[in-house]
């Protein structure tokens, strides 16, 4: 692994990152007072979602983030995408970062599919000419066909997700963050998505993937980082990472 890291400059640097959330025990003055009288906890206790996590992802590398629910994987992905900021340590990225994270967040049900494609592609950082250029590909990939000019609220949930995913995957990017997204649609569409991600990996895009699907992760990534209770416990070849993850 170290060979890859020295050969290419990193695209993502995560260094000594710590993220702490405050778990509040009371939500109003009255509650706080009652708790105080009953001698229960008042105020908040810190919860370390991530604790001193460090790793780098080299340009063109595909890395899987593995861990059980609540281990801090998604928080880590949000730190890399810039939605959250670390409390200490630092995160650095190079190039255009795009995320397949909860696709469809920017969709408006009252707008047509076409309008939503433009709006969401712009939200994900594309300009008009880039979207114009890819519009046909996006529609073709989503298999929406003539429904593209209908309001999105009339779409089935499968159609909605296909279009949302299609927009996200066609964004011009250097680094792709994937969060448990490949459970979209029916089997043929899932197959198509996995192929598309393969294609991007082959094109030298950097990837950071969160998934519970070990089969798919082993297929897509050469390296895995295992997170447990906010700490990095393993970083190495994917097969060993999957073992380390299951070993507990």
């Amino acid at each position, binding site marked *: 692994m170290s060979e890859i890291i020295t050969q290419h*400059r*990193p695209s993502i*640097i995560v*260094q000594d990152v710590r993220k702490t*959330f405050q778990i509040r025990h009371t939500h109003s003055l009255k509650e706080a007072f009652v708790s105080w009288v009953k001698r229960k906890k008042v105020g908040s206790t810190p919860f370390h979602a991530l604790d001193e996590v*460090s790793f*780098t992802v080299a340009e063109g590398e595909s890395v899987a983030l593995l861990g059980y629910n609540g281990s801090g994987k998604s928080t880590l992905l*949000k*730190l*890399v*995408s*810039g*939605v*959250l*900021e670390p409390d200490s340590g*630092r*995160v*650095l*990225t*190079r*190039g255009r*970062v795009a*995320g397949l*994270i*909860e696709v469809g*967040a*920017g969709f*408006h049900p*009252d*707008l047509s599919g076409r*309008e939503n494609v*433009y*709006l969401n592609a*712009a*939200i*994900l*950082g594309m*300009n*008009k000419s880039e979207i114009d250029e890819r519009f046909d590909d996006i529609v073709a990939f989503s298999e929406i066909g003539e429904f593209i000019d209908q309001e999105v609220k009339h779409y089935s949930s499968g159609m909605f997700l296909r279009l949302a995913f299609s927009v996200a995957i066609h964004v011009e990017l250097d680094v792709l963050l994937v969060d448990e997204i490949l459970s979209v649609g029916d089997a043929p569409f899932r197959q198509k998505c996995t192929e598309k991600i393969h294609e991007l990996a082959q094109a030298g895009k950097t990837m950071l993937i969160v998934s519970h699907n070990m089969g798919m992760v082993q297929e897509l990534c050469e390296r895995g980082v295992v997170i447990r209770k906010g700490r990095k416990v393993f970083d190495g070849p994917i097969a060993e990472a999957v073992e380390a993850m299951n070993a507990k």
Partner: protein
Amino acid sequence: MTSGDLTGFVTPGRGRGILDVLGHGYLLRLLIRKGTATRYRNSVLGWTWSYVKPAAQFFIYYFVMGVVLQFHRDVENFAVYLFAGVVAINLFNEAFGNATSSIVDNRALVRKIYLPRELFPIASIIIAFIHFLPQVAILLLACILLGWTPTLLTVGAFLLGLLIVLMMSLGLGLFFGALNVRYRDAQNFVEIIRMLSTWASPVLYTIAMVQASLPEWAFRLYMLNPLTTSVELFHFAFWAPTTSAADYADTLAPSIGTDILTSVGIGVVLIVIGQLVFRRFERSFAQDL
């Protein structure tokens, strides 16, 4: 691993504040189009509501202030006087209110995707401005029927008044919009400001009446309100030329020059404070929503 060459690296999630909005012009346009296109979806009257609401407001004010309290005897063309002020305050209330709730309203996006969050309050202020235009059109129509013709001075006064309102909305909108994410109390506080704005500026009465009934220091304080200045400028732009006053500059308070400078100054300070607070709170938007 820190010792390497870090050129080309950026820290995700750090923007340049409102300056970043300039680089996202296309997205801003689409957000504005979304806001205007979906506002009156599923309503039969649609954009007519943009006329009906201010009209209803205008008639009730005119009935109470003009007819019941007999202001239209003291103020020539009281209807135009009233409407010019109402239009200015409506723009402020709408822009400020929308900007305050813009981050919370867009929580789905703010929580999941990083983009300069200043886009949301700015888009909502521009949407408010677009809805302000039909009202100005009606006001203009009324003025033209009363013999109003544009001059450089009146158009300039209108633009200056507009600028002050927009600066106030942006500064306060950034401030309360950011605060509103963690403390929803902000929304209620903003409601109070919006309710007071009509009464704390010379919309329903004239400045001369305020001066006559307040001690000098209280009157100075009253005049510090930038909205007072912009309402005055709107009066000067639309109402004053329709009156029989020989020199309609007399309708302005004598301190108008310093009032304008003070108002613009307050606007700049509010934007700076709003932006600083916004940046401070922005870091925890995604976890507080």
